[in-house]
């Protein structure tokens, strides 16, 4: 059974032009009209097997980060079904879950808690986490004194010491220096041997080359290619070099807009008026 499966998943982002006033909410409730919006992801479906390592590539605004947020369970889909089995660890942003005024050691414990470790395990593993990060001399300094490379070292070290089945990484390994990157890559390859699953995002396939043997290419929220790394990577690079020549008619020019039809969307179910009855 696949560890991750997405079926016809769509996520719609409303274009509310920064308006979220009571009046707008009431209007939405009363008229039940979805506002203007676009598909951040449109009809995306794929499966990931346990122990697989999948790269997600695409230009800016392709929906890569939205896809990771979806897999992490941060945002529910508007249409379609998502199934993720097992514990997810997400490194979506360098400083997420960190506080600059706390020391490295305090942040380490807090992050371990956020990743779901219990106290005993977290304390037992903290030395091994510090060793992996090579931050021992600075571990009792406040995090605001850390460089972005040091943030990455701490965040990544905690994540790989948590008991997770699926690791999601968004474009952040690149801030580590080559030595630490190699260490991370070696560790990730070790994780794959332990049948852990990895989903990585980047806009440059080169970064993912050593980690992934499968690539999913998104463009304007739509899945363009899903397959063997070299083939998808070659197509993607050819497209990025000259968007018009190779793929003129099969690649969307812009994100698909939502046509305001009066259909019942999942989140229209939150209408308070109906609930009150």
């Amino acid at each position, binding site marked *: 059974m696949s560890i991750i499966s997405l079926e016809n998943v769509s996520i719609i982002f409303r274009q509310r032009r920064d308006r979220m006033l009571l009046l707008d909410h009431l209007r939405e409730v009363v008229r039940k009209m979805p506002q203007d919006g676009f598909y951040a992801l449109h009809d995306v479906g794929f499966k990931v097997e346990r122990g697989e390592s999948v790269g997600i590539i695409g230009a800016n605004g392709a929906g890569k980060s939205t896809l990771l947020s979806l897999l992490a369970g941060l945002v529910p889909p508007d249409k379609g079904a998502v199934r993720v089995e097992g514990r997810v660890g*997400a490194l979506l942003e360098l400083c997420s879950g960190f506080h600059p005024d*706390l020391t490295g050691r305090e942040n380490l414990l807090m992050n371990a*808690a956020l990743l779901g470790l219990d106290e005993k395990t977290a304390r037992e593993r903290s030395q091994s986490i510090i060793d992996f990060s090579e931050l021992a001399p600075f571990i009792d300094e406040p995090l605001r004194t850390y460089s972005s490379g040091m943030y990455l070292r701490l965040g990544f070290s905690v994540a790989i010491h948590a008991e997770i089945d699926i690791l999601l990484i968004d474009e952040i390994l690149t801030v580590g220096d080559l030595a630490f990157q190699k260490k991370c890559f070696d560790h990730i390859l070790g994780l794959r041997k332990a049948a852990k699953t990895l989903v990585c995002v980047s806009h440059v396939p080169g970064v993912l080359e050593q980690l992934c043997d499968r690539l999913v290419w998104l463009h304007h929220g739509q899945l363009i290619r899903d397959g063997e790394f070299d083939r998808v990577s070659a197509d993607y690079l050819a497209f990025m070099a000259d968007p018009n020549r190779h793929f003129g008619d099969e690649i969307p020019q812009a994100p698909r807009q939502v046509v305001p039809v009066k259909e019942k969307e999942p*989140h229209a179910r939150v209408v308070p008026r109906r609930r009150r009855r």
Partner: protein
Amino acid sequence: MWKGDYSFLIRQLVIKDFKIRYRNMSLGIFWALLNPLIMVVLFSFIFKQVFPSSIPHFSLYILSGLIPFNFFTAAWLGATTSLMDNAGLIKKVPVPREVIPVTAVLGNLVHLGIQFLLILAAVFYEGLSVNFHWPWLIVIWGLELVFIFGISLATSSLNVLVRDIRYVVESINLILFWLVPIFYTFDMIPMAYKDLYQYNPVAALVLATRKVILDGQAPPLNLMLKLASVAIVSLLVGESIFRHLKPRFYRYL
């Protein structure tokens, strides 16, 4: 789905809030004691010198009204804005969302613990002592916490969608200051309003706390029943609002 150690997570988040609040303060937790101390001195001056009051054990009377009231307002307002204050966690870390407002309330419980030392000091200063009805305080405060969790779940999630909610909460707190017997007594309330007045959980909290500390008696059963029923209704309604709005947090933060 997030699976993990809730108690470790909540403890870590509460410790974080506490540390970052006081780490760079030269006087540390003294600041938690200063505000109620100033209020007691002010009230004592006004109600002894300006409008002489006949309430016995006046400083303890004021403290046992003010400290619960302060806890309530700080916890509720802090929890109301907690989801927005922690937008980074909501958008980037797959952690159960309920934990955030609950943590904000519990963080204020730490302050309450510190301020409770003031009440204890005033008890001995007024020549009273700890009596065997004090375990009631745990029941009273437990019910109050349930009530605060409920309204906080409601207002914190609504505040993500409509940012005016925090000002609504601030205004309600202002009104409550006068609807809780902090510097007047419950006896002064006209008979017609007394029954209704006790449904105000903050007033009920203060009345029950005083019954135990000042009168050395168990809180009246009908007062506790009112507090319990309001607390349970609040939790059920608040949890349901939160659960319905939760899927929208990502898009609105």
